[in-house]
């Protein structure tokens, strides 16, 4: 922070950048709403064969969560390498937990 404008306001360049970021976030919000509606419509109208429904629903959920993590929680931004290590470490352990519970239940 070399320049000192004696102002508490964010500088115009930064403001513009924040605004562009906000627009991306609103778009990802619209996408998330869309995916949610698709998921509910698939189930409510019974339009799909049972064996396809579950994978499609899970796929829609994972895409939504990716939007949430990368845009809303800023995981795509710079300086988030360690944050990504932490959360994917958690996801890895979560996958092991689910696999273990699946194996002891159905094998």
């Amino acid at each position, binding site marked *: 922070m070399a320049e000192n404008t004696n102002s508490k306001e964010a500088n115009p360049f930064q403001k513009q950048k924040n605004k562009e970021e906000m627009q991306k976030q609103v778009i990802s919000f619209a996408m998330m709403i869309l995916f949610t509606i698709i998921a509910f419509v698939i189930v409510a109208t019974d339009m799909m064969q049972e064996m396809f429904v579950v994978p499609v629903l899970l796929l829609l959920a994972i895409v939504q969560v990716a939007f949430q993590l990368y845009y809303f929680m800023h995981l795509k931004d710079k300086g988030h390498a360690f944050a990504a290590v*932490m959360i994917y470490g958690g996801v890895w352990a979560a996958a092991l937990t689910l696999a273990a519970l699946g194996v002891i239940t159905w094998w």
Partner: protein
Amino acid sequence: MSHDQSLNPETMPNEPEKATLEGKNKFLGFWFFLGGETVLFASLFGTFIALRHSTAGGPSADELFGLELVFIMTMLLLTSSLTSVYAVYHMRNNNFKKMQLWFGITAILGFAFLACEIYEFTHYITEYGFTFRSSAFGSAFYTLVGFHGGHVTFGLAWLIGLMLRNAKRGLNLYNAPKYYTFSLYWHFIDVIWVFIFTVVYLMGKVG
């Protein structure tokens, strides 16, 4: 701490939540915590999936769940996630009042969600006799969804505490990380809810 001049700089840095060492540590530590929470919820989800057909003669998922209420709850929580994004946007523009306003809207939506959930649980218990003890499905359902509801309750208490405590302070480098950490927590609650409405409600309806 908050009297320190360095926490009230003339020019706010672009990312006030990560401008101090304490802020950076909170950021990293909180992501670590979220990794742990992922595992915790995974074990609850795994248990629920294993037990979701063990109804012990009681009502099944298909008979219990109504998609309308779940859809409303999903919209409420998803919108509250967006309003907290707006709050962080105003935080980065150093606009404290607007940040408080959007976090306030987030809190209202959170309470609306919680009210729907309480209504839902009372409905199941009084109309269907579907309780925590009535079947293994019931135990797994209330543990998983209730744990999420507990997170929402805790988050609301956290947010209101933050907003009241800092109402007269304004935004500085001491409390910016606290607000940012809360917004991460709130988004994570929404992440969990996405899997709950998919795995518990929608997959419950499919069979």
